[in-house]
Each structure stands twice: as C-alpha cells, then as structure tokens.
C-alpha cells in the first residue's frame, strides 16, 4: 500500500445535486484524518436506480464509465452504503475490463467501513451534545454488514456508533425496531407509495417516541425520504448524514 493512498471520492448523484453539504463533510472529514482525496469530476450515476428497476443490462455504459473514472485510485470512498453495494454486487460484468472491475470491487468502501477497517480509526474525538437516533440503512447493514442485524445470532456491532462513541455529550437513542427498513427502496418510493410512506412514518415515530433530536444514517436516500415525510407533517426532527456529525464534532 502506498504511504499516502490516493482516495477517489464517489458522491451519489442525488447527494451531488441535493445534499452537497454531505459531500463537503465527507471530503473535509477524510482530509482532516490525513487523507489525500480527489473528486473526479467526470463521475455520474452508478446505475443503481436503473438496475433495481430491472434494467441492470442497460447500465453497461454507466458501469464502464464508472470503472474508467475510478480505476486509478488506491481506494474509492462514498458516503453511501447502497451505491457501494450496487457497484460491488449488481453492476453488470464488463467484458475486457475484468481485472479493473475486480480490483475496483476490492477497493471501494462505504465511509464508515473505510474509517474503521482501512484507516483503523477507533473513534473520533470531539463534542456533539445531542440525542441521536441512528437509521440502519438496509444495504449498508445487511449488504455491507456495517452494523449487526437483529435477525442474526451475532454479537452486536455498529461501525458508525463506534466512530461516535467518544463524542462528548452524544446520547445514542435506543429504538423499538433497531433495523426496520424506512420504505425508500428506490423506485418503490414511487411505485408502492402508500407502503413507502407508512414505513417512513413508522420509522420517524420510533425515533420521536424515544426522544431523538437528530436522525442520522449512512444513506441520504433514506434520509431524504424520511426528511420529506417529517417536513410534510411538520415534524421538527433534524436530519444529518453521520459524515456531517463527525466533521462538525471533530476537534
């Protein structure tokens, strides 16, 4: 491994467009932790929405482009579990780029995985005196195993919680249903709108009932959906990606 690895910052398309602060926080956080980070301007969508809607075969061009844009970095890091999971597991195989694609799969990480497993950071020191509820986005959790699943018989772990363990004043809220899906699900949010909304409302209630001030997680897609419901219902819950919390809190 080179002494100062060069990290390619992968920002999901909707984060680029709607939540630039999350991208900025990710970039600044990595830089504060001593990383050399570049955001390759040519990146576009990873193709996940199309693939999940049943058009994986139509994402060949997108996938090829993704590989070309990111192949020369030592690591690729994204503030999104679902996009990283898609690239690793559901991007179509590209003929003629087998090695690059395989290499890419081994060096792409969601942010909390990267901090804990690669940078070997135990936790971030700083201050964040708030009651925080964690939403375990499904793809990050059951896909990338960023945190333990309530379904499995395993010792509990949570990489995001671990990173926040030393933030002064932070109170981690315990939920009734620790890892139930928020109901976003990509096109599901629109094609099964009634279910999507009910699931989102139930997640918000779980956080509200247990006193969360700030709802955080690793995927802005989930947060966008939950925040949209909260605002429509005049719920004053705040929403932050954990990158924003860590970047704000870091001393």
């Amino acid at each position, binding site marked *: 491994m080179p002494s100062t690895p060069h990290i390619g910052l992968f920002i999901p398309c909707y984060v680029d467009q709607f939540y630039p602060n999350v991208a900025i926080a990710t970039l600044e956080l990595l830089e504060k932790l001593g990383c050399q980070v570049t*955001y390759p301007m040519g990146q*576009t969508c990873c193709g996940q929405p199309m693939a999940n809607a049943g058009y994986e075969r139509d994402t060949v061009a997108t996938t090829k482009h993704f590989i070309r844009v990111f192949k020369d970095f030592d690591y690729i890091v994204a503030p999104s579990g679902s996009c990283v999971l898609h690239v690793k597991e559901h991007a179509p195989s590209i003929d003629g780029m087998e090695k690059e694609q395989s290499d890419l799969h081994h060096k792409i990480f969601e942010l909390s995985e990267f901090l804990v497993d690669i940078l070997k950071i135990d936790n971030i020191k700083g201050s964040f005196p708030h009651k925080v509820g964690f939403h375990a986005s499904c793809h990050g959790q*059951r896909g990338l195993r960023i945190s333990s699943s309530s*379904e499995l018989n395993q010792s509990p772990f949570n990489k995001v919680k671990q990173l926040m363990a030393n933030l002064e004043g932070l109170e981690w809220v315990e939920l009734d249903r620790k890892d139930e899906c928020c109901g976003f699900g990509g096109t599901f949010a629109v094609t099964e*709108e009634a*279910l999507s909304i009910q699931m989102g409302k139930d997640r918000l209630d779980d956080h509200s009932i247990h006193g969360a001030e700030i709802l955080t997680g690793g995927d802005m897609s989930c947060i966008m959906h939950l925040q949209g419901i909260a605002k*429509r219902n005049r719920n004053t819950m705040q929403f932050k990606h954990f990158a924003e919390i860590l970047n704000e809190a870091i001393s």
Partner: protein
Amino acid sequence: MSHPAKASEFLQDPAKSKWHDETLWFVRDKRDKSTKSVPEWEKLRDLASQIKDNVLANLGSYLEEFERNAKANNIHVHWAKDAAGHNEIVLGILREKQCKAIVKSKSILTEECHLNPYLEKNGVEVVDTDLGERIVQFLNQAPSHIVLPAIHLKKRDISEIFHEKLHTEKGNEDPDYLTQAARIHLREKFLNAKVAITGVNFGVAETGEFVVCTNEGNADMGVHLADVHIASMGIEKIIPKREHLGVFLRVLARSATGQSVTNYTSHFRSPSPGKEIHIILVDNGRTEQLGRPKFKDSLKCIRCGACMNTCPIYRRSGGFSYESTVPGPIGSILSPGIDLQKHSSLPFASTLCGSCTDVCPVKINIHEQLYEWRQEITKAQPDKAKSFAMKFANGIFAVPFAYNISGSMMRGALKILPDSITYSGLNTWGKQRDLPEIPNESFKDWYKKNRK
C-alpha cells in the same frame, strides 16, 4: 389488481393495518428470542442450507430411494406432474373408498392445487381442521399466511362467523370459548371421516417415512381415526436421512413461531394394520424452477413463514395483497416462476431490505432472487418498461438521473415552480413527502470553486 393497489387498499384502514403489522412483528420478536437462545443457531442454518443444496443436486435419486423404501413399508406412492394430476389421484382414492366427506389438515400444496373446490365440485365435503384454516374456510377466504392462516382476522370477525356457523353466543369473543366450540365441532368431523388428508413437512429418503408437524394435533386426529391417510408432498420436501430431521426440527418451529418445537411431530413409516397410507409426490412447476439457476434455491423452502413475519411490506399489506397461494417474500420468488404475467408486481413489492434472507432457516437468498426476477420481468414485459418510464418521469428520480438536463437548470426549475405544480398529482413523490430543499450549488459546483 396488482400489489400496489391492494396494499394501498389495506392501508386505508390505519388501525387495522397497524394492528396487523404489530401482531406479526410480535411473532418475529418471539422468533428472535428463541433463536438467540441457541448458541449454534447460525451453524444450524448453514447445515440446513447445505443439506437442502445436496437434496436439490440429487433430487431424482432421493425421490426414487424414498419411493422404494416407502413402498417396502406398505405405503402407496403416487406421482403427479401437476395440480390436475394431484387432484385426480385424490378423487380416485376417494371414489374407490366410496368416501364423500373428508378432513384435511394444513397443506399449502393442496391450496396450490385448488383441491378443495375440485373435490367439492365432485360431491365431496372437505373440512379443513386446522383452526385458522377452518375459520377462513367458513368465510370463503384463502389463508393469508402459510403458518398463521387467520392472522388477518380479529376476534370479533371469528366470533361473528362462529355464531353463524356453529351457533356460539352472539358477541362472545373469548378465544377459549370459541376454540372449545371448534374443538367440539371438529371432533365430530374427525370421528366420522374415513379418509384424512395431510401435508408433509419432510419426506426422508433413507427410510421412506414422512413427518408432519402440528400444534393442534389435528393432522393426527384425522389420520388415526380414518381408514385412509393421503399425504400430499411437494417433491422438494425430501431430505436425505433421518438424522437430518435433527437439524430441520430445531430450526422449523423456532423460525415459524418462536417455539422450540411444535407440539406434535409425527413420523409415518407404515400404516396401522388394516389401514392405508398414500403419498402423492407433486411436481406442479417445481422441476421448471429447478431448471432456473438463479431461482432454483427457492425450492429449499421449508414453509416456516419467517420471511413473511419479518417483511415490513407483508406486515403492512397483508397476505391477500400478493394474490398468490404462497404470499410474502418467498411467494414473490416462487409465483413468478408459475405465472410471470400474473405475478409481475410481486418482486417489485419490496425494498430489497434483505431481512427475509437473514431470517430464512435454509439461507435462501430471497432478496437477491427478487432483484433477479425484476431483470427477468422487464425483459419479458416491454409494456412494463413503458409504465416504469412513466413512473420515472413522474417521480423525483427522473430529475436527478436525467444527465441530459444540466443540474443547475433542473435545480433552478424546481426552485421557481409553485408548489401546486411541483406537488401535483402527477408527482407521486410529492403526494405525502416534501422535496428536499434546493441548494444554491451542487457539490460539483462547490468543488470547482473550492478545490480545483
């Protein structure tokens, strides 16, 4: 109607749908407490999964071994290539025995074959003896869950139908009272039935025996009082050896209801003197599914229902919203194999959260198969492509993902459009959610200014 329409309907009664969700979550929770008390739980899942992998890889030879051994023990073995074949075999046996009234314990396979209406059309009275199944039978409904058939009904609903059919006290909703009434009513049916039909939880190739698990004892009450026991078994229910029952019986009830074992686990190896046992081995699309590399692992299913209990969609939309004999996550990967057109909305009735896969005792990769069925469905149904394009256009996600439109133009448009347009009926996202606040610049813009 497709799943979204039925789900929407179900959710129109918020109190009922919340109750349904909480009731099934309670079952999931019981399952968790039970599985966490078994330190080797994950190892058991691995074993169950591997045994079933071995079964599917050797299905033909295990079925032949099973038949040989069962026949040597005086069990009549029949083979049915499809539902019609199965139903004809059952009727044939009933006609031979001149039997016009039977009792039947829970068998999702007989539901799949639509056995009851077929027999009734041919002059045979069929009484479903599992309490939940008898209740839905009285109501002319199908079971809404493969293990908890009446989970969608409240005490009040059951009290009303029992008052009508069994003349119980009007308004008496006490479960003990109602169950006792059903006990008396069904005891009479058991005593008079000459033929009893059961399902099969496991068929053991090594010994030719088969196993039926119940809590109520209704399968046994039927078969031990009758002269003839007909057992309907899907060909995938075979397991290689008796010792493998040790693995499956440790995971089945814990996954289904959180109990450590069902009350009764009956092993049928040969008939009582003077009686007959018939077993019908049914294909009905299973060999087709076996031939689908991405979907054949769905045949490992032991019908525990855990995936239904854990599914946030199933809990909030109910079994009937799937319009398939087996509903929920497992149903959504089995049914498209039977009728792709009819069941094309099912693999999309999911957020691919993966909870089903994590509770499955035989480690079927359910959520991955749901993803794979989506790929098959869009290939097979170009019309659906159009409707999805429409949904994209109507939903928020056409906008960020349309790289032909420049980001700033799109963001600008959303900023200045009045809410009445942004949140018009065409925009499904906006029906019950606000759009995110529109930032002044994208991250790309910021990066250009601040880093390059």
